[in-house]
């Protein structure tokens, strides 16, 4: 890779051992992906919950945190993805004091590095929204796909170590979605039925994701521009993108007429001939839901998460649950970012949800917070959610997931069984 004088100095250790580790790590990854050089980034976003860090990861962070301040502090705004545990709700979720202790160690280490503990996977809605053309080092696949596609910013999936490295050096190897050539549409889908709600948007992401199934493919999703109801909103695209990234490892999509790099289908394919479109209609949605259906089953836990809820989703949920009571044999867990939680507390939304028997957790996103241990401690197996991303990923932790709209999730939580 071509290095600037500053980068050569970092590599030589002149900016301390943390930045030297960082640039070595970035060069190994950059060479793997044939990056010609580095590109400066505007923000880094670190996925580093303690469940995935483990003791080895936390001890490694603590070594960096013990360096002198000029050698350890990040060079660009660096923020965090959801944590492993919420101090305000972990006892109600039957997480342990040992989990809280390792979480506290990780937070102390990150703070010593100058990292802002935003603890959110919806930073594009709530912290500092990326802008078109801005290079970023974002962790969390849902954040990357939203930043690339909806905001026209440029990021690869950056795992925790790589995102931290980008924070420390202020740059990232220029490969993948930093380059124009990778951002051109390669697959083509035509949606015949407008999704009715957030669960449907996630289902659509799942359908397109399963069919695309590669980090290096860019699906173009047509049909949206003709809908009389208008374009999808941020929450709808959030669920669509999160599911698309989860089911297909996809980092970017175009939606002609909606996303900024594709005013028209021709723009989405950069003037190249569009591939034959795969049609997606009512039958595809029905088949997607049927893969997770469990009508009549007792429901152990209803989860609203993955991604964290926006303030608007919190209000929708509170409106559906007002004056009702969650079944005593069923738990209801809602996750959002710390900032949205403050807003929801202030506006009375948290109280409305918790009066009905729900738990509102901040700075976590359920699946990143010891999901297997929570299942065992609470006796949870059947999980109901309106997040297609969550139904895709939670089975590996021993859950049996079912997908339904927010309304049906609440009705089922009240009934104690899937209705």
């Amino acid at each position, binding site marked *: 890779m071509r290095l600037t004088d500053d980068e050569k100095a970092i590599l030589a250790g002149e900016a301390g051992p943390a930045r030297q580790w960082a640039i070595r790590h970035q060069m190994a990854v950059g060479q793997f992906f044939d990056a010609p050089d580095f590109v400066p980034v505007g923000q880094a976003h670190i996925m580093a919950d303690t469940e995935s860090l483990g003791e*080895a990861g936390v001890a*490694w962070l603590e070594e960096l945190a013990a360096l002198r301040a000029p050698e350890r502090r990040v060079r660009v705004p660096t923020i965090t*993805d959801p944590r492993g545990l919420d101090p305000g709700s972990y006892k109600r979720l039957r997480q342990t004091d040992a989990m809280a202790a390792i979480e506290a160690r990780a937070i102390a280490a990150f703070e010593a590095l100058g990292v802002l503990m935003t603890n959110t996977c919806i930073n594009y809605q709530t912290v500092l929204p990326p802008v078109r053309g801005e290079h970023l080092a974002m962790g969390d696949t849902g954040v990357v796909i939203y930043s690339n596609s909806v905001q026209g910013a440029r990021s690869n999936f950056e795992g925790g170590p*790589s995102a931290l490295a980008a924070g420390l050096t202020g740059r990232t190897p220029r490969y993948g979605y930093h380059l124009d050539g990778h951002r051109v549409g390669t697959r083509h889908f035509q949606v015949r039925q407008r999704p009715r709600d957030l669960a449907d948007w996630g289902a659509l992401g799942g359908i397109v994701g399963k069919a695309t199934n590669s980090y290096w493919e860019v699906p173009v999703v047509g049909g949206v521009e003709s809908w009389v109801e208008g374009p999808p909103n941020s929450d709808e695209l959030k669920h669509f993108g999160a599911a698309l990234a989860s089911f*297909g490892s996809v980092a970017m999509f175009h939606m002609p007429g909606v996303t900024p790099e594709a005013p028209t289908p021709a723009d989405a394919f950069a003037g190249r001939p569009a591939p034959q479109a795969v049609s997606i209609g009512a039958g595809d949605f029905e088949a997607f839901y049927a893969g997770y259906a469990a009508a009549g089953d007792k429901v152990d836990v209803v989860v609203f998460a993955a991604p964290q809820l926006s303030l608007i989703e919190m209000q929708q949920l509170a409106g559906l649950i007002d004056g009702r009571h969650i079944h005593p044999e069923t738990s209801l867990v809602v996750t959002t970012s710390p900032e949205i939680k403050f807003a929801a507390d202030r506006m009375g939304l948290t109280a409305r949800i918790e009066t009905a028997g729900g738990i509102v957790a901040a700075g976590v996103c359920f699946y990143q917070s010891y999901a297997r241990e929570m299942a065992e401690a609470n006796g949870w197996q059947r999980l109901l959610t309106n997040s297609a991303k969550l139904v895709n990923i939670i089975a590996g932790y*021993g859950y049996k997931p079912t997908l339904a709209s927010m309304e049906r999730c609440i009705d089922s939580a009240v009934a104690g069984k899937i209705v």
Partner: protein
Amino acid sequence: MPIVLKCHRGLGPAVTGTALVAQDNFSARYDLDRLKGTFSRPAHKLCGQSYVGRILVLQTAKGGVASAWMLREMAARGLAPKAIVFDRTNTILAQGAAFAEVAIVDRFEAGDPTTLIRTGDEVRIEPDAGLVTILNRD
């Protein structure tokens, strides 16, 4: 003559081991029981099998940024695969392998390695040279 497969330059140390192959994908967070060292997602083709010390040969890495931390943590507990061979990886597993110093290669000239390498094959991985050698077959 062993079978020599050329691939893109990879990452990590040269290693030799026994292959565990499936026409399926990989996510450390969603597919594995990392405490037992086995595949645990019921729909995964290797569900129930141990990956510890094996050369894993799969098609692609799936969503799940956490895998970047998890490989190092698995290696620290002695419960990591010896190397990972993909048809085409996403960025996360390459970053995670770099962090964990676990060998990883992808992009084979002869096509999808899950169709070229069989479970039980003795395989030599040389990431710097971009070579994978199947030692037990001609």
